[in-house]
């Protein structure tokens, strides 16, 4: 990186990021999977979010777990993971923390489970924790925690009580007022926000008249959701900037132009998930594109871009 003295390093919640790019949860397994690809380097990204992790191991959903859709894909993996203790004792020791920052993705079915998973990650080398509040609340009728500001805030508050590591709350787009939810999560102690998680959707096989996905419904990701994600980032930024809370903008990023759109809309860092499936070497390519843009616009830092959107009056 670092052409002509420019560099993409940023500070995010006090953590040094090599670049504003963050590899997103559920797209890179538990961290080392993409190192199978020649030329891929964790040094090209600011952070890597690990797969959603629960207290106990989960087998996840039956196949098919994914379906291609127009401009994107649906997934219903069902949080397949080996449980937090295995992640902490067997997986984290195999990660090279000198290359990038690793962020755990905390998931659960009850507030208590989120809190316990957070507590166990707190006692580990993990750099930060992201709260995946899009999981269904089994005690309260299966509504996703993240679709209700009150339940979201309860999760954040409970987890805040057991860790001083940076807490990032990942907001769901499947709700009426994402900005209000953001406000409640910030007040409950969230250090940063990730915007957005997948949009719920379905695909139908017209021959069998069954949903393509084993779980019937799944989360939509990829370029199809980018316009929705950009608007949500813009809306959440109006709240977050007042509190100095940074945003990881995400949803459908495949190019440097996409990443720049998110930064301008209010993000401080940009997530890359489904875009990696298109091109596993996208991080280096996107970094280069961002750098060229900064040069062309004679910008010294990325921070100058964040929230620099000029709305039509």
């Amino acid at each position, binding site marked *: 990186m670092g052409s002509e003295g420019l560099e993409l390093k940023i500070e995010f919640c006090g953590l040094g990021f090599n670049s504003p790019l963050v590899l997103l949860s559920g797209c890179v397994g538990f961290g080392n999977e993409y190192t199978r690809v020649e030329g891929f380097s964790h040094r090209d990204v600011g952070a890597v979010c690990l797969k959603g992790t629960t207290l106990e191991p989960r087998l996840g959903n039956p196949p098919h777990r*994914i379906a291609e859709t127009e401009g994107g894909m649906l997934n219903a993996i069902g949080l397949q993971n080996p449980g937090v203790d295995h992640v902490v004792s067997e997986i984290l020791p195999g990660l090279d923390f000198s290359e990038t920052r690793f962020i755990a993705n905390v998931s659960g079915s009850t507030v208590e489970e989120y809190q316990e998973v957070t507590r166990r990650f707190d006692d580990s080398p993990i750099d930060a924790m992201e709260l995946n509040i899009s999981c269904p609340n089994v005690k309260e009728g299966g509504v996703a925690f993240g679709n209700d500001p009150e339940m979201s805030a309860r999760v954040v508050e409970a987890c805040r009580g057991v860790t001083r590591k940076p807490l990032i709350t990942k907001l769901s787009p499947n709700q009426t007022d994402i900005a209000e939810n953001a406000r409640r999560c910030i007040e409950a102690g969230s250090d940063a926000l990730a915007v957005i998680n997948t949009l719920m959707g379905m695909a139908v096989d017209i021959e069998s008249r069954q949903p393509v996905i084993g779980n019937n419904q799944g989360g939509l990701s990829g*370029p199809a959701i980018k316009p929705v994600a950009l608007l949500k980032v813009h809306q959440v930024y109006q709240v977050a900037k007042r509190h100095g809370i940074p945003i990881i903008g995400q949803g459908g990023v495949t190019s440097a132009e996409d990443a720049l759109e998110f930064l301008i809309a209010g993000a401080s860092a940009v997530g890359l998930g489904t875009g990696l499936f298109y091109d596993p070497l996208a991080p280096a390519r996107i970094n280069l594109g961002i750098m060229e843009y900064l040069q062309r616009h004679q910008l010294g830092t990325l921070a100058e871009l964040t929230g620099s959107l000029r709305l039509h009056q």
Partner: protein
Amino acid sequence: MSDPATVAPPKIVESVGVVLANDAYAGGQYILRLQAPEIAARAVPGSFVHLRCAPELPLRRPLSIMLRDQTKGWIDILYKVVGRGTAALAERQVGQQLPLLGPIGNGFSPAPRGSRPVLIGGGVGMPPMLLLASELRREPHFRPVLFLGSEVPFPFAPKPSEFMLDGLPPGVLATMPLLDDWGIPARLASGQGFAGCFDGLVTDLARAWLAQLDETARQSVHLYACGPTPMLRAVAELARGFDLPCQVSLEEHMACAIGGCAGCVVQVATPTGPAMKRVCVDGPVFDASTVF
């Protein structure tokens, strides 16, 4: 194999293949030849590539490597048009470029010296069997046998085999010319009444041959299979019936094909209970007794 200790897979290369040929065969089948030297060099029997069939399609498509020439740097892929991706692939012209990732996956575990590999391929599951055969022929002590089945005309011109195989109904003589050239006995099966082919399921053809072997000869057999799921289930039954080791190559929808998304899993029996294994990097080859 599902045990990662057996064959350490090579690094996956992100590259652009140039179309050298994309020839149509009956039944919507195509053989695509791509110039992709790094992938040709690293492929092992069972490896596949993840191919971008058209720029507008979000996901790549997994396709097995059928043959490769390490010197000339090409790979051959046999595919059948079944949906948008493969239909777009059929439109690709000589000289066009196709982004691809590969080689991906753990290959077949090598059979022990002195064993008799029996390879069973169905439809577009034939490719991994052919790549495996091309490797096995380098070690003459193996004496492999192939049984191939198809319900559409085979994507080659069958001819009577020069090699005898006992226990088969009279007139079952057709083989793939390339296998004869390699000195490998093989037979074809189909329910479509193609000349010289066994009339029925490829697994019944294999059973007829296995049944006539004496017990000692049969105990040295290792089964390898790739094809539609019902066929693989029948091969697994065959293996169970004769108490033979059996490796199968599986298919599942894939997003990343790198091991990142857990989208491509199958349920596998392990000593500690059921586990979800990724077809892309834990497979695509699995021990049949753990999946069927």
